[in-house]
């Protein structure tokens, strides 16, 4: 099966006054159709940059693409601007972290969803000027109401007449998910969609996202720093550290036998009953002067000379448990952990 999203050896830097900030360093990532992939990492690891690179929304003048490619459905998202424009909002849609910042506070929800349906409607070859016949408008309205019902918003007609500030955080996020699903995309990029929400609402939203994705066969790339949320929703987990891919593994294998020292320490940082959480000493390195070799080496307890000299490659084949480390933790060492 051809992957829907194929990112290989992607390096990307931002121009800054003090030289290039190398925020992504040889990232590899594949997303199969219908798969939910979690992109996990701490703040500053480059997960949002990667999400925006896929959407093609990085500031053009500041971004410098070093190497590699991003192919979505066979289209080169980095170099083919016209095709990117065609795909964005149709084949790939986005659910942001803070839905309030993505709504226009001056317009009712109806107007904002209406705009979306006018320009990104899935069913017909849209007219260039956004013109719709009466029948098409009616069909669009019905599709919107049906979708609001699907994301479990009570009384969708009343929601449409409200302004964004009149909705609660959970309702806003539901409307966002509805808007992400309306163009019938093949990939949804959800950038920390539940960090601003309470646990009870988070459970509802994650459940909804997972159910809809599975029912409709939509792939989801879900970035988060919350390992618990990743466990809830993902089929596969990708861990990033300081712009490098550290580990890629199926969900069960990842949580049962983490192999990268960074991943292990991350899991041990979770507060749990019966043991004190251990933090990771040190701080994430600056992308202006990243450490040579493996970028985790200054904080790594298993560091040796080779970690500074050579960047570890991602081991194994796609689909297997892949790890980028010179001294990975053997499965036997972690048996019984978690």
């Amino acid at each position: 099966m051809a992957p829907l999203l194929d990112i290989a050896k992607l390096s990307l830097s931002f121009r800054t006054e003090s030289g290039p900030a190398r925020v992504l360093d040889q990232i590899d990532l594949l997303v199969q159709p219908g798969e939910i992939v979690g992109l996990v990492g701490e703040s500053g690891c480059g997960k949002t940059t990667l999400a925006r690179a896929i959407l093609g929304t990085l500031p053009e003048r500041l971004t410098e693409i070093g190497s590699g490619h991003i192919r979505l459905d066979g289209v080169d998202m980095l170099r083919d601007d016209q095709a990117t424009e065609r795909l964005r909002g149709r084949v790939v849609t986005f659910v942001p972290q803070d839905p309030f910042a993505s709504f226009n506070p001056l317009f009712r929800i109806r107007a904002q969803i209406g705009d979306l349906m006018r320009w990104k409607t899935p069913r017909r070859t849209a007219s260039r000027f956004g013109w719709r016949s009466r029948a098409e408008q009616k069909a669009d309205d019905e599709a919107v109401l049906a979708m609001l019902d699907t994301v479990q918003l009570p009384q969708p007609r009343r929601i449409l007449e409200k302004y964004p500030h009149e909705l609660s955080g959970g309702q806003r996020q539901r409307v966002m998910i509805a808007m992400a699903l309306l163009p019938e995309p093949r990939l949804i990029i959800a950038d920390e969609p539940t960090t601003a929400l309470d646990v009870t609402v988070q459970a509802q939203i994650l459940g909804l996202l997972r159910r809809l994705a599975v029912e409709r066969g939509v792939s989801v790339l879900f970035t988060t720093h919350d390992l618990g949320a990743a466990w809830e929703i993902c089929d596969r987990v990708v861990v990033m550290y300081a712009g490098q891919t550290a580990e890629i593994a199926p969900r069960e294998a990842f949580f049962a036998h983490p192999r990268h020292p960074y991943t292990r320490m991350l899991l041990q940082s979770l507060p749990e009953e019966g043991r004190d959480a251990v933090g990771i000493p040190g701080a994430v390195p600056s992308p202006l002067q990243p450490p040579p070799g493996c970028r985790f080496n200054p904080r790594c307890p298993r560091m040796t000379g080779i970690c500074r000299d050579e960047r570890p490659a991602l081991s194994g084949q796609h689909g297997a448990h892949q790890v980028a480390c010179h001294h990975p933790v053997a499965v036997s060492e972690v048996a019984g952990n978690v």
Partner: protein
Amino acid sequence: MSDLPAPTLLEVDRLGRHFPVRGFLNRRVGTLRALDDVSFAVGEGEVLGIVGESGCGKSTLGKTLMGIHEPTSGEVRLRGERIAAPGQKRAAAVRAKLQYVYQDPGASLDPRWTLRRSLHEPLIIHTDWSRAKREEHVQAIVSAVGLPQAHLDLYPHEISGGQQRRVGLARILVLGPQLIIFDEPTSGLDVSVQATVLALFRDLREEFGLTYLFISHDLAVVRSICNRIVVMYLGRIVEIGDTAEVFRAPRHPYTRSLLAAAPRIGGPRVTESFTLQGEPPDPSNVPSGCRFRTRCPLAIDKCATIEPAIDFEGGHGVACLRWREDAL
């Protein structure tokens, strides 16, 4: 509140805080009951967690205890002395004993002041110590929070965010408070940083013999650091008890939903079995009777008329009419 091991430090007695809702021409059109009839006690050296969804009144509770809001009813006592009641103004001596830590304590540093000046300021206001005595005290506190002395001459932007956080904590500790109220101290932190911050809180508590009130919506954090927890819903306490006891056998249906909603790594996906729907109703228009009844899976007709009081059994209290029924 019978079997507290330590003497009581703080007593909260039927505390209420209502906000007027203003309409056209500033006319009062309603009341937002942010806190209603909240009573609990905190023992000396204890860490009490306060959990609940956003809008449940946990921050209002913290701010009312601090004296930032004036209570509408009820009173607060610190070591038996009344420190907050309707119409009471707070004495400066009391203000030094209670301290409030915001989400990012480092953000309260003045960017144009050296850290030394920021740390001296509370002592200048609250004490009449000589400069040398203040300096000695500040240096002792700074080493206790794990900062090098040389940092005292730097400005906030010259140190890292984590160090700013430590300076913010040092600034709170210089006055020798008895009770510290933490308001969401770990939200927005990465787990690896969060673990370090929690360890620092633990060490400081032991070193200075502090009592903590820990307001958070993160159940895993609360579970790892608190001795007892209070669960709030729409301005009322629904459950109170030892952390281990509440997590092992939650009695209130709301507490159960809250615990069930938290993802458990290694366990089954909770999103597949999670049943609680919707969000808390508008606090300016609370349901009659039990406030949780509109979302409660166990609600019966009686719940709409009777407002359940907290029912204690062995230090574990719950405000629900039906918790004793076996079939739950």
